[in-house]
């Protein structure tokens, strides 16, 4: 096996706008052989994305390489002129960005962007690239693989976009693919298919990979080796099985321990007779200009009803693209429902948030799935977090500053971050800011759309603990949208399983011990990856079920 990547004593630092130096990567060295898949795991903000990008000879604005070398396929990237680097990017090494939402150009169709790599490098005829792209779409379990490429980025769901960006990276037949958290927005069933697709494509092409992830179970399935990072330094490195089964470093052990918090059963309901905080009845909603009956041409939600009691949590799980985010947007009033009723705290809310009262808006906060697009890139973190404080609570001056610091502490972020802009944060850091902003409102109900998907196990566990603690203190309620079924089960009193815009079933801990009965739910639950190498390869799903639900 020949060596593909050689990283030696890499040092990268960032400069804040006051000229203060922040060391991001402090002397990292590792190698990757051809066809080998190496996972980078570690704390959110530890420098995984930074290293991954540097493998492509690129550092984000504000950062610069201060030492060390990166050698890719025998050439030292740092010594190359920009034009030569450009010829390598996409053809030799390609990248699946952490935030797919931000990586797609809103002005072009998805297909145009997927085949662009091939166009740039002229490595294959465009027509052939399109066929190949459709093949990849199918392999990645995307719905309507033949036509999804004609849509624009804002017309597909978060998870769909993520898979599309993976297709974009794989289409050019590179020697090395860098996956930066490529399955964070995927439900487990889809994830299984996607991982399989990754593995087969990479095995066929002898493609090496760097797989950045915090999901240890996924890493266990796909990686040959694991590198554990923290604070910009390598903590431990070794074969996947070794790391997972015999971790040496204390931090690695911590990471593993935090994986999948035991589903501590929630105390039984005491306030059974309490009026529900949120009731959603018969929601029909979708996209496009409404027809004569007021119904949208693209109907996403088909008669969804659910209810949530005060101080309780409701989880929503379901396939990527089934309408979870749409449901959250409908409840928040961003996408007014065509039919149905939303009742919060006994009051019927107007379908459009513009007609809602200010208190209602405060009481119901939504955390957008994509933190990248939901944070104003022009505002500093303290402005972003300070605004709801000033707006809802009239906080100003020192009080507000102090509360901002508190919020940062709560989401486990250093206070020094407050001066930065979203562009200067890591993916997981942005996600936490996004959550902290919703917390700042002191709402009664928070709609959490994938709020831990970009977080390592330790931080994610801390965030979950935080949410629980807040709930205990303030009797908050959460509507918890996530693909991470274990986490959902860990904190939710009830779980709604959705499929193609409809509620399949509502799982309650007191019914059937919280186990699913519907076939789709069973498939979903059985697809949760295990922290065991080879689980994926050995996974034998009920063929009948898979067939039934493969027509997405």
């Amino acid at each position, binding site marked *: 096996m020949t060596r593909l990547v050689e990283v030696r004593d890499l040092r990268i630092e960032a400069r804040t706008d006051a000229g203060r130096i922040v060391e991001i990567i402090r002397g990292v060295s590792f190698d990757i052989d051809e066809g080998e898949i190496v996972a980078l795991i570690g704390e959110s903000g530890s420098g995984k994305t930074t290293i991954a990008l540097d493998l492509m000879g690129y550092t984000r604005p504000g950062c610069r390489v201060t030492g060390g070398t990166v050698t890719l396929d025998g050439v030292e990237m740092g010594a190359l002129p920009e034009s030569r680097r450009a010829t390598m990017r996409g053809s030799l090494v390609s990248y699946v960005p952490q935030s797919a939402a931000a990586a797609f150009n809103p*002005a072009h169709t998805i297909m145009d962007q997927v085949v662009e*790599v091939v166009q740039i490098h002229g490595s294959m005829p465009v027509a052939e690239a399109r066929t190949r792209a459709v093949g990849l779409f199918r392999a990645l379990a995307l719905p309507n693989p033949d036509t999804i490429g004609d849509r624009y980025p804002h017309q597909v769901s978060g998870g769909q976009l993520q898979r599309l960006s993976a297709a974009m990276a794989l289409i050019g037949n590179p020697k090395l693919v860098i996956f930066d958290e490529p399955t964070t927005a995927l439900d487990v069933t889809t994830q299984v298919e996607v991982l399989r697709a990754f593995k087969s494509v990479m095995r066929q092409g002898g493609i090496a990979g760097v797989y950045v992830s915090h999901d240890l179970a996924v890493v266990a399935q796909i990686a040959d080796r694991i590198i554990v990072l923290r604070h910009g330094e390598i903590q431990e490195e070794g074969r996947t099985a070794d790391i997972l089964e015999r971790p040496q470093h204390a931090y690695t052990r911590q990471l593993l321990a935090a994986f999948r918090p035991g589903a501590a059963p929630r105390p039984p309901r005491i306030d059974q007779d309490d009026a529900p905080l949120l009731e959603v009845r018969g929601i029909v909603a979708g996209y496009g200009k409404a027809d004569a009956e007021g119904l949208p041409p693209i109907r996403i939600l088909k008669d969804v009803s659910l209810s949530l009691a005060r101080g309780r949590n409701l989880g929503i799980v379901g396939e990527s693209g089934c309408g979870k985010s749409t449901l959250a947007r409908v409840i928040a009033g961003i996408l007014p429902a065509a039919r149905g009723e939303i009742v919060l705290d006994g009051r019927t809310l107007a379908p459009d948030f513009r007609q809602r009262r200010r208190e209602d808006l405060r009481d119901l906060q939504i955390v957008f799935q994509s933190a990248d697009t939901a944070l104003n890139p022009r505002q500093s973190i303290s402005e972003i977090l300070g605004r709801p404080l000033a707006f809802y609570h009239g906080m100003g001056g020192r009080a507000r500053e102090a509360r901002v610091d508190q919020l940062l502490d709560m989401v486990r972020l250093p206070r020094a971050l407050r001066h930065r802009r979203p562009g200067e944060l890591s993916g997981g850091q942005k996600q936490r800011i996004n959550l902290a902003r919703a917390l700042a409102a002191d709402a009664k109900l928070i709609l959490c759309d994938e709020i831990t998907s970009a977080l390592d196990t330790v931080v994610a566990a801390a965030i979950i603990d935080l949410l629980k603690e807040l709930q205990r203190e303030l009797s908050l309620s959460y509507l918890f949208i996530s693909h991470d079924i274990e986490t959902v089960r860990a904190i939710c009193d009830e779980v709604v399983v959705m499929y193609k815009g409809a509620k399949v079933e509502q799982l309650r801990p007191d019914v059937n011990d919280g186990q699913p009965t519907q076939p789709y739910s069973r498939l979903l639950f059985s697809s949760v990856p295990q922290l065991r190498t080879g689980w994926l390869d050995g996974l034998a799903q009920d063929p009948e079920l898979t067939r039934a639900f493969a027509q997405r």
Partner: protein
Amino acid sequence: MNSLILRMVAGRLVVALVTLLIVAVVIFFATALLPGDVVQILLGQAATPEAVKGLRTAMHLDQPAALRFLLWLKNLATGDLGVSYVNNIPVAELIGNRLGNSLKLAAVTAAISVPVALTLGVTAAILRGTLVDRMIAVFTIAVISVPEFLVATLAVIVFAVTLGWLPALSMTGDVTTISGLLKAFAMPVITLSFVISAQMIRMSRAAVIETLNAPYVEMALLKGASRRRMVLRHALPNALGPIVNAVALSLSYLLGGVIIVETIFNYPGIAKLMLDAVSTRDLPLIQGCAMIFCLAYLLLITIADIVTIVSNPRLRHA
């Protein structure tokens, strides 16, 4: 998508008519507010009260203004722009010829300056912060800081008087050869390009820079795109809305705003016609010219608006 644009164009057409009507009313009454009327101005120093009264009656101007306006509107509905008060020539005839000239000049200027300006603007954006960028900035501002009449006069002094390469005047009426036409157009086109390019250069630079920071441009870089491709294919389409608006605003100047160029190069265009009409209070002619300008402007900005929407799928599918 096509149906959306059709719907929008249709809607705009209706709105444009309303806008035109508003403009007509406003201009009519603004002109009425102007001191002096056509008769006084025609008679000039000879405007004794009885002479004024006599001529007014003879020209049927003693009817109430509102009635004359309605009459004018009625004729307009049948496509008749009326007859000039001053020389009894149909307004359409007066405008027709000169509008053609103006459009010719505008088209040539636009054809040259729009691509050049956008190229310069985008180049400046690509090379932001470099010496080239700064040079382009200083140069464009310096160029528009020089008043138009000075650029024109200087061009005449250099190219016509001193070097004798080009004619000092651009009367294209007698020009028959292509090279003659080129010569006649050269100086007005250059002068006008100087005037309108700056806005396009600066605005396209600013708009492109704004989008160059977007993460999808970074992604394009990671796909191996050249700087050119990043700017042209990824940044530019997202900056198109503001850019076409800047272009539309710049081009709208080419009809009504070219008065100085028309005067100095003696080019018989519509801007001077309008000015004449205002100074003689020739209401039908003022209205006619104003309608043309307004129409041209509405046309340009409607195109700009459509491009804005078409270039942004989020708006297009809204």
